C-alpha cells in the first residue's frame, strides 16, 4: 500500500514524479451482458513509468480496450465489476472510484478510438477544448482559455488554429479531429496518456502523422503512454514494452524487440503476420502469409 499522505486528494498531480505512474496488479473485470457475466479481463498486471510507452496488443474482443476504460473507471456503472489493484499516481482507482474521478482531466487523459464521434457535434471545438482547460485550471478566464487553447491547437499542428476555434467537429477531417482530441487531452497537462486505438479509424497516411505527434509530445514532456492497439505495426513503432492480450490474459510480455523479433507464442506470430509489408512485389513466403492473413 502506498502512503496516502503522499497523494493529497486536492492535487493528485502533485504526487511524487518518481516511481511508476501506473501500477496494475491482478486486474479482473467482469462485464454483465445479455448473455450473462463475461470475464473480459482476467488477472493482468503491468506498470508504466514516466516517459515510457507500454502497449497492450490483441485482436478485437481480447479485453484490451476494457482494460483501458476500466482503469479510468469509464465502464458503465453497474455493468462492470472490477477487482485487483490499479494505482495511478499512487491512488488505487479500483478500491476508490472517486479517486479516478479526481484524476480524470487532471493528470490523466484519454485519446479515444474514433475521433469522428468523440466530440459533441453541436458544440464548437473551442468550447470543448476551452472547457477542458478550465476544468484543469478552475480560475482560468474564457479569454485565457481561448488563448491557451489556440496555442494547443497550434502545437498539434492544426493549420490557422485561431480561425478554427469556432468550428464544429463536422467541419474537420478524421485526422484533424484526432489532433484536436490530442489537444483536448493535453489540456489536462497529463503525466499519463491512455490512447485507445488512437489511429484505427484513420487512413494509413494520416496514422503516421498522429503517431509522430504523440511520440514528439512524449519526448518533450516525458509523459507515460498506455497504448491500446490491434496493429503490431503501430506497436512496433511506439512501444517500449508490449503485452500481448488474448481472452482477457497476457499471453506474452516483453520489450518491443523481443516480441517483434522473437515471438514465443503462435498468437503473437499470427498478429505479426497480419502486418502488411511494403516492398517490391514477389512471390516470397512472407508475401503469401500476408495475403493469407488478410
Amino acid at each position: 500500500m502506498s502512503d496516502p499522505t503522499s497523494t493529497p486528494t486536492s492535487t493528485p498531480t502533485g504526487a511524487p514524479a518518481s516511481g511508476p505512474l501506473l501500477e496494475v496488479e491482478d486486474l479482473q473485470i467482469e462485464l454483465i451482458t445479455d448473455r450473462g457475466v463475461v470475464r473480459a479481463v482476467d488477472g493482468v498486471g503491468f506498470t508504466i513509468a514516466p516517459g515510457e510507452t507500454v502497449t497492450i496488443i490483441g485482436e478485437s474482443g481480447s479485453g484490451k480496450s476494457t482494460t483501458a476504460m476500466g482503469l479510468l473507471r469509464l465502464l458503465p456503472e453497474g455493468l462492470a465489476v472490477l477487482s485487483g489493484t490499479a494505482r495511478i499516481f499512487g491512488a488505487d482507482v479500483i478500491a476508490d472510484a472517486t479517486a479516478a474521478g479526481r484524476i480524470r482531466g487532471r493528470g490523466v487523459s484519454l485519446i479515444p478510438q474514433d475521433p469522428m464521434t468523440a466530440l459533441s457535434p453541436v458544440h464548437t471545438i473551442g468550447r470543448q477544448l476551452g472547457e477542458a482547460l478550465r476544468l484543469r485550471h478552475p480560475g482560468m478566464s474564457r479569454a485565457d482559455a481561448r488563448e491557451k487553447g489556440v496555442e494547443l491547437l497550434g502545437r498539434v499542428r492544426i493549420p490557422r488554429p485561431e480561425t478554427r476555434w469556432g468550428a464544429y467537429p463536422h467541419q474537420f477531417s478524421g485526422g484533424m479531429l484526432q489532433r484536436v482530441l490530442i489537444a483536448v487531452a493535453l489540456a489536462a497537462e497529463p503525466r499519463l496518456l491512455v490512447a485507445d486505438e488512437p489511429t484505427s479509424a484513420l487512413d494509413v497516411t494520416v496514422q503516421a502523422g498522429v503517431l509522430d505527434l504523440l511520440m514528439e509530445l512524449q519526448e518533450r514532456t516525458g509523459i507515460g503512454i498506455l497504448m491500446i492497439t490491434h496493429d503490431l505495426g503501430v506497436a512496433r513503432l511506439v512501444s517500449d514494452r508490449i503485452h500481448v492480450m488474448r481472452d482477457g490474459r497476457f499471453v506474452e510480455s516483453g520489450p518491443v524487440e523481443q516480441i517483434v523479433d522473437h515471438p514465443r507464442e503462435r498468437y503473437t506470430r499470427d498478429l505479426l503476420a497480419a502486418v502488411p509489408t511494403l516492398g517490391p512485389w514477389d512471390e516470397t513466403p512472407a508475401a503469401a502469409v500476408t495475403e493469407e492473413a488478410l
Partner: protein
Amino acid sequence: MTRYLIRRLGQSVLTVFLTLSTVFILVRMAPGDPAAALAGPNPSTADLARIREQFGLDRGLLTQYGLFLRDLFTGDLGTSYSFHAPALDVVLDRVPYTITLSLSAIALTTVVAVPLGVWMARRADTKRELGANVLTIAGQSMPDFWIGVMLLTLFAVAVPVLPASGFTTWGGLILPTVTVAILQMALISRLVRREMVAALASPYVTVARSRGVSTRVLTWRYAMGNSAIPVLTALGTRFAAMLNGVVVVEVVFGWPGVGSLVVRALETRDYPLIQATVLVTAALAVLVQLLIDLAYPLLDPRVRLGKAA
C-alpha cells in the same frame, strides 16, 4: 437564408390554402343542411329555399367556391349564420383563449416532462424508473375527457377550490391546463427518456467524462444539447395541435376557445364559421412549424444553411 425563408413562407401559404379548400368542399359534401339548422322547427320548403338563396347555398359548388375565393382575397370570410357577425371576427375573439390554454399547457408539459424524462434516463432500467414508467403509461392511456371530469369532480365539486367552468379568474386556467398537459407530459417524458438514454451512451459523453466533465454538465449540456432537436420538434408539434383547439377539454370546462367554437359551428352547419376556424388554426399551426424549422440551425450546426464546412 432569405430565399429559404421566402420558399418556406410560400409553402406555408399553399398548405393553408389547400387545407381551406379541402374543408370548403368536404363540409358541403357532408350530410346536413345549414338551412334546416337555421329555420327552426317544421320549416316549409319555401322557407328553406329562401334561406339557401340568402346565403348563396342554392348555387353550384364551383360557383360557391369561386365566390369564396374572390371574397377571401379581400379578407372577407363571410358572415356567421348563427352569430350574425363576420366569421373571422368571431374566431379571432376566441383565439386568445386557445393560445392562453395552449401556452399554459405546453409550459407545464415542458417543465414537468423534460426533468422527468432526464430523471428516468439517468436511472434507466432501475426499479424506481419502472415506477415512473408505469405512471407515464397510465398518463398516456387515460382519455382526456375522463381526466377532465375526474379533476372537475375532485377540485370543483368534492373539494371546491377551483372554478368548474369558464375563464373568469386565472384559477379557471388550472384544471383545463392540467387536463391537456397530462397526456402530453406522458408522451414527451418518454421521448426525452429515449433520446437522453441514447445521448448519454454516446462516445462523446464517455470521452467528455474522461476529461473530468461533471455528470451535471454531461447530462444537461452534452446529452440535452444533442437531444434538443427531437424534443423541440415534439413539443412544437404538440403545441401546434393544441392551437387547433383542444376540443374535448374546452367543451368539458366550458372554455371559450376555438375548440368549443368549432363544435358549435359544426352542429349548426355554420359554413363560414367552419372555414374561418380552419383558416385561423391552420395558419397558426403552420406558423409554429415554420418557427421550429427556423430554430433547427440554431440547435444543430450540421443543418446550418448556406454555411459550408
